């Protein structure tokens, strides 16, 4: 989810936070950004981030990157200039976001003390001019902003009336311009007594911890990966919790024939149904693509204390005896221990340094990278076999997982979610009807692709709208005519094709014209000493073309038989004399 972090750099941000002399609003914003970056780093540094600071103008400090250090450095260098102008920033964000396609969910995180601005560039000023001009092309950019998800980290005290009024105004802006957004602010304490009793001497609710809480809430609402269980077969190890990143978006299914429109989410459990060769799947249209990442149980403790906790933990994992798979887990653990070098042994025998390294490894806690993981196994096997796993993500809703390798040869497990429905890839047929070769009836064969009816371009269609195509069809007949008797069969085949098409289109003029052409050709070939067979066939064909009795769908012109019926030869003779009349 590409995100622009926007920092309000108006002079008001330099105010010290009341009751907290060590903080200015800007320094709190900086701390908040650092904490946000910490969160993204912990989640795998997947988000693309850009940094802008805004005042009367908005300035791009860091363009989209996954190198968060760049942003950390740039944040420190932000300098305040003049007044805040939120709308300029929003307008600028449109052009910064423009490189991203509509398939990405775009987000903005704005750190601000919720200044309203001054004069025409103020939010109230904007709302006044905007009213009634929603469709004005001048405001077309707002339609683009409406696709973004806006997150405002509102730094302020609820006792500050200027701030609370500003919050109302911000919400009005979101509503008026139909923007998707959320204002994050510190919780209102003692709502009933808030106005009257809040004393400035009391340490204010806004501080480092409060900002961190806002960031946690932001991550929870706007940056949470979709959590599902991936299941492949019945063995308990072949089932694992995974994260889908970026998170899946709900699918809005339109109303069809009395079935109400509904918003669909993918199931909590996605089952592998079977496997397909990637070459059979091809490149079907997909609703969305997601990385399938193993879910790691994160300790609630902060990173600093995490190392301590791990040391304190026993090397041996404690297993839960109530777990239905306890026996299997214990067995696996025992086997692993069996394979691992026994620390006591090595100590006793006092072997070389090599062993002590191994010892450190095996006795220390397993890092996440060293724990076996279904995703990695599945990825490896899919990559090796060039296959994809068909997964069911919902009722009549499918997707497929495969090993995706990017331009830098980095590879990971990817899930392509197909549009809902079981008949979404024409060449695979109904996905509900996919089975295994054992399910085939005896003697039945099946393979991909599922073949469709022949389309016009794979039949020998006749279209004579352009004269050139009529010409090429006629020339084909004439070419075969010259090569008779070798090409007699081809000649009649093409002749009948033309004749049938001409009859369908009521193009009887062509039949006569073709008869004439054949006679001319016959005369020409006779002069050049062509074989007797050739001239006989041409005469025969010309006669047959003219017969009205042949203007029937069932009739076919067949080659003239040697020594055939005398009737036919006489008609050929008549035709030949007729031919010379032209």
């Amino acid at each position, binding site marked *: 989810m590409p995100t622009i972090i926007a920092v309000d750099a108006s002079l008001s941000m330099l105010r010290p936070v009341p009751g907290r002399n060590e903080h200015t609003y800007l320094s709190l914003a900086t701390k908040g950004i650092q904490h946000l970056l910490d969160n993204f780093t912990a989640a*795998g*540094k997947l988000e693309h981030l850009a940094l802008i600071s805004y005042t009367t103008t908005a300035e791009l400090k860091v363009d989209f990157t996954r190198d968060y250090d760049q942003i950390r450095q740039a944040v420190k260098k932000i300098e305040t200039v003049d007044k805040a102008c939120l709308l300029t920033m929003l307008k600028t964000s449109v052009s910064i976001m423009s*490189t991203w396609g509509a398939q990405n969910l775009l987000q903005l995180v704005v750190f601000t003390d919720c200044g309203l601005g001054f004069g025409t560039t103020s939010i109230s000023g904007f709302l006044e001019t905007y009213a009634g001009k929603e469709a004005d092309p001048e405001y077309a950019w707002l339609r683009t902003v409406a696709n973004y998800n806006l997150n405002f980290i509102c730094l302020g005290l609820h006792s500050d009336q200027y701030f609370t009024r500003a919050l109302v105004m911000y919400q009005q802006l979101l509503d008026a311009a139909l923007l998707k957004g959320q204002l994050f602010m510190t919780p209102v304490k003692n709502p009933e007594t808030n106005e009257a009793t809040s004393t400035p001497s009391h340490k204010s609710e806004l501080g480092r911890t409060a900002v961190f809480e806002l960031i946690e809430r932001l991550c929870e609402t706007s940056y949470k990966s979709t959590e599902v269980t991936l299941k492949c*077969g*019945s*063995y308990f*190890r*072949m089932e694992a919790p995974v994260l889908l990143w970026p998170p899946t978006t709900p699918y809005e299914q339109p109303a*069809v*024939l009395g079935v109400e429109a509904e918003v669909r*989410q993918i199931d909590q*459990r996605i089952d592998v*149904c079977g496997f*397909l*060769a990637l070459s059979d799947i*091809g*490149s079907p*249209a*997909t609703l969305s*693509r997601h990385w399938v990442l*193993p879910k790691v149980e994160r300790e609630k403790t902060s990173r600093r204390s995490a190392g301590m906790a791990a040391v304190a933990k026993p090397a041996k994992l404690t297993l839960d005896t109530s777990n239905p798979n306890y026996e299997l887990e214990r067995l696996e653990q025992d*086997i692993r221990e069996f*394979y691992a070098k026994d620390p006591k042994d090595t100590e006793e025998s006092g072997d070389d340094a090599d062993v002590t390294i191994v010892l450190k490894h095996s006795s220390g806690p397993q890092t996440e*990278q*060293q724990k076996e993981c*279904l995703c990695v*196994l599945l990825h490896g*096997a*899919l990559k090796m076999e060039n*296959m994809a*796993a068909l997964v*069911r993500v919902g*009722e009549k809703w499918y997707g497929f997982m495969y090993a995706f390798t990017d331009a830098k040869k980095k590879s*990971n497990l990817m899930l392509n979610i197909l549009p809902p429905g079981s008949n979404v890839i*024409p060449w695979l*047929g109904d996905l509900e009807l996919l089975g295994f*070769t*054992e399910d085939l009836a005896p003697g039945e064969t*099946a393979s*991909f*692709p599922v*073949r469709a009816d022949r*389309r*016009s*371009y*794979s039949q020998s*269609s006749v279209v004579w*709208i352009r*004269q050139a195509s009529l*010409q*090429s069809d*006629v020339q084909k007949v004439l070419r075969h005519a010259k090569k008779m008797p070798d090409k007699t069969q081809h000649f009649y085949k093409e002749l009948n094709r033309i004749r049938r098409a001409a*009859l*369908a289109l*009521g*193009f*009887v*003029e*062509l039949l006569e014209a073709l008869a004439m*052409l054949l006679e001319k050709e016959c005369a020409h070939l006779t002069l050049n000493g062509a074989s007797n067979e050739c001239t006989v066939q041409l005469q025969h064909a010309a006669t047959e073309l003219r017969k009205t009795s042949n203007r029937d769908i069932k009739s076919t012109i067949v080659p003239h038989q040697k020594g055939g019926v005398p009737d036919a030869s006489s008609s050929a003779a008549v035709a030949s004399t007729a031919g010379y009349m032209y």
Partner: protein
Amino acid sequence: MFERNQKTIFVLDHTRYFSIASEEYISMDFLKGKPSAHSSAGGSSQFSKSLWTCACESSIEYCRVVWDLFPGKKHVRFIVSDTAAHIVNTWSASTQNMSHVMNAMVMVGVPSRSMPQSSDYSVIHGLRAAIEALAEPTDEQSQAMASGVPDDLILNEGRVICITSARDNTSMKSLEDIFNTVLIQQNVLSATPPKKGLGINHCHLVILNIVPLGIDSMVTNRNLLEISPLLDVEIHTVGAPDISYKLTHLILDHYDLASTTVTNIPMKEEQNANSSANYDVEILHSRRAHSITCGPDFSLPTSIKQGATYETVTLKWCTPRGCGSADLQPCLGQFLVTPVDVTSRPSSCLINFLLNGRSVLLEMPRKTGSKATSHMLSARGGEIFIHSLCITRSCMDEAPSIADGPGGRVNDYRTSELGQLMKMSRMVPLKSRDPAAPNLPRRLPRYFPLTTTSTVLFHLQRHLSWLPHFLHLLVKEMDKQDEVRCQQHIHELYKSASRGDVLPFTHTNGARLKPHKAKDQYRLLYRELEQLIQLNASTVHHKNLLESLQTLRAAYGDAPSKSEAGTANLRSFTESPLSPERLEAMSNVSISSSTNSNSLLKASKRRMSNCGTRSLLDIISSAERSQSNKRLDFSGRICTPIGQIAKLYPDFGNKEKDAAAAAAASGVGVAPKE
């Protein structure tokens, strides 16, 4: 679902006027391929299509495009009108194809020139029939009606394209009025019982007034006009030879199509195979193929072809590098295509190239001057698709490497084994699916450790030649003979354990196993075997094997009873082989892999049971008892792990449970399908 373009009816005027020539002459010499300059002589050496042929071929071309792009979804009917209406095809799928229409048209034939001019001959008959046809439900509409969807939800709209020739505006007006009146009458008929057909919600009437080339028409063109809430009418006067161009233009709006011209297709010259020239091929497809890729920083380049009245998007052919239709492209939408000129040589070259399994990327320039492959053409299952590709930046562009993620540093995954299973579980399209057929979870092994370091069995499988066979026996439907073989293998194992053989592990870096580990290896092996059999238990034979394994484990001091002391006893017993005779009688099967007789097996089994706290007599008698008690156990008990409650009719329940579980997971309560 039921859009206006799902029903289209062509009404073709088949009156005498249509037998006259379109006056666009085709020279005979041209047909022979001679240069046209040579054939200035007119008269008999040229001929012309009739108005009928023009109307016929252009309307058939229209439905060729429709059926290529929307097979089975959009329907086109033909009605021919002279003294009465002649129905060429119906809404049913069997008549909605080119060959049916072409064959039927042969029977219609060209209007006779000798027909008397009479008021009986009129296009009105056809228009009336067209309205009746609109009231007839299509298969989809019938299905919706049958499934209980209320009639008012089944939208019934359609389009009538009438190719006729009217004298002047007045006669055109009367045509319009009659149509409107009949439409209203039809809706009255549909509304009053007995209901005759579906009510028509809306109709779009397109009148093409055609005249021979060079003739001026008294009828004025008119854009879409709403005659009534039910009826919109537009009128176009066209010269007969241009009617196809007109229809190609109209079809774009009728079906929301767009045109793409693939440019710079390198092709060998027909005459000179050594040189190649670049050609263009124009194709039609859904407009969404263009709109779906559009982004703010680029727009697709368009141009207007000579003689055309619509825009086409020009995309450049990229010569494919590999045989690349297997490459998975990020695709936003795929749409069927059809060439505008299906018979031209460039078109058929492109089509054959694609149908042979190659795919072509199409390139467009970006504003920045760089290029992007915005589309791909490829054929699958005999159909050609245009794929709209994602060309904007995507957050998926750079992959987080799986090796850096959790589990990424484990290097002994059983990848090739899973790969084998994948190949065996490759899916194929079935005509019908038996819901009872095993699904993937029932096909994949019930015991499948992910890595070789979490299994002894599958690790050793590569080094012990008999093990794969043994494991195979264990997981399939077992019969008596299989059980005997398995018992033998178990016995072999026991023997090598008692000899203290070191199993051929490769993980120990060549270091020798410590003595207590040598014992562990068999314990783990037994335990794993036990788990494997338990997970696969489906017959009484499995149950038997499980029993003997458990005895073996007990003998090895690894039973739930944990009688370590037994091992010492065991050794002493193995030194003196007994020879039980009963087993020989039972298993007179030929055995290939085992070197020892079955008797040993039984003997060892007894000996092993001995290691507990029981006396020898107890053991022998219990062994005898178990032999004689070998009737089939209750199958539920066999399949159920110890300590759990057996389930009645497990197969019967499984599917429903699966379906129910899936339904519950999706949050929608649905009955299992079928």
